[in-house]
């Protein structure tokens, strides 16, 4: 039984391949996060729009995205959208799917962050005749961001841990590469263990980083120029 004996030489041999696949995983997470934060903000702001139709449509859209599996969304974007003439690389599809899916979750975080701003702040902004855009940009969001950081960070880490789902559309991220290495060499122990350890390390580092960002973020918020 060689399946249970750890082979250091093999582990070192495959590590570079897994590390280079880790770059794909991190890139997908990074781009996915940026897109998710953007979409989350858009959803959150549209949910506060004066138009009831718009508010309700966004509510149902967000519910729909949150209540269907990420994998279904990934497949849909990758296999169905080309029929409508929209085809993207596996990476871009992944970024789009992750961003949309987690954007739906983040919109709730952002919404409650915005709701947490005192009514008096909105009223002062209106009394000073600031436009809605300036009110969000200068008054509300700068104060709302700090309380949003922990939950946003958790979702980004969750997104990172879901990137293996992108292997289903042939993206060569860490797990997919580990699987290929395993099947080529008939040894799965080392590649999968390495992938697990890398996920653990990245998650811990990210959690620490998020905590640091939160700690250093000005308590009252910040002022734009």
């Amino acid at each position, binding site marked *: 039984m060689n399946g249970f004996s750890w082979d250091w030489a093999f582990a070192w041999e495959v590590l570079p391949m897994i590390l280079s696949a880790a770059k794909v995983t991190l890139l997908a997470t990074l781009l996915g996060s940026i897109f998710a934060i953007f979409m989350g903000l858009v959803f959150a702001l549209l949910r506060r729009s004066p138009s009831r139709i718009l508010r309700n449509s966004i509510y149902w859209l967000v519910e729909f995205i949150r209540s269907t599996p990420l994998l279904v969304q990934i497949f849909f974007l990758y296999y169905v959208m080309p029929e409508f003439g929209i085809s993207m690389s596996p990476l871009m599809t992944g970024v789009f799917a992750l961003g949309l899916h987690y954007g739906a979750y983040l919109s709730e975080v952002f919404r409650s962050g915005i709701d947490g701003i005192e009514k008096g702040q909105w009223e002062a902004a209106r009394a*000073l005749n600031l436009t809605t855009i300036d009110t969000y940009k200068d008054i509300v969001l700068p104060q709302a961001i700090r309380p949003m950081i922990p939950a946003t960070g958790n979702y980004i880490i969750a997104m990172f841990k879901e990137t293996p789902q992108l292997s289903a559309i042939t993206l060569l991220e860490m797990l997919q590469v580990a699987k290929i290495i395993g099947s080529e060499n008939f040894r799965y122990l080392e590649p999968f263990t390495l992938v697990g350890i890398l996920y653990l390390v990245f998650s811990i580092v990210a959690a620490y980083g998020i905590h640091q960002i939160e700690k250093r973020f000005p308590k009252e918020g910040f002022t734009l120029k």
Partner: protein
Amino acid sequence: MSTPIIEFKNVKKRFGDTTIFSDFNFTVEENEIVSIIGPSGSGKSTLLRILMTLEGIDGGYINVAGESLWHMYWQGQYVPANSKHLHKMRNHLGMVFQHFNLFPHMSVKRNITEAPMRVKGMSREEAEESAEKLLNLVGLADKADSYPNDLSGGQKQRVGIARALAMKPSILLLDEITSALDPELVDEVLDVIRNLVKEDSFTMLLVTHEMYFAREISDRVCFFDKGTIVEEGKPEEIFTAPKHERTKAFLNAYLGQ
């Protein structure tokens, strides 16, 4: 007298099932200082909040500086105001709040320059110069770079006044501006208002529980109860010889006369 600068005509206002104003009429002349006194829940603050467009109305008309506040003339008839119209109308008005509502993430200076820069398109230099003058006026020249949370309540409210004045409103609304302050801090805020009206003419509408201040500063005092003006007149009349029973009861309770 000339046309009033503020005019409420048959104004109706409800919050859910509670009627605040059923048929409210009220006018303020230009450069008149009017104090509104009365028990809480009588609609005093709502009156100011409607003028500042923080609350809508359910009926009637309001004119500010000769133009309808909550309506606009469009294709030959009055229709509810759109945000552009409200934006224009708000330029006439400034408000100081009971709980200050300063922006805690901005320096004192930035609290004051934010709106002139964003709304009036003033340059930073211009806005800061004017902020400096205003901070001098309210006696806080040395606090320009402080943050609201480092200030006392009285200082916060003086910043609140400076911030409202920075937009050069022709009508200043003061909503119980000393109610949230410790008693020993009330005077420093009221002194600012005293100086203000000494140096410049303002149309000022204040809701207050400071009876002596109301008496001293106002051209007219209105006693409010249950959404109507029960009694109004010159401060001496209201405070020394109130005619209405409810006014008497209120002043007795308040001043312990």
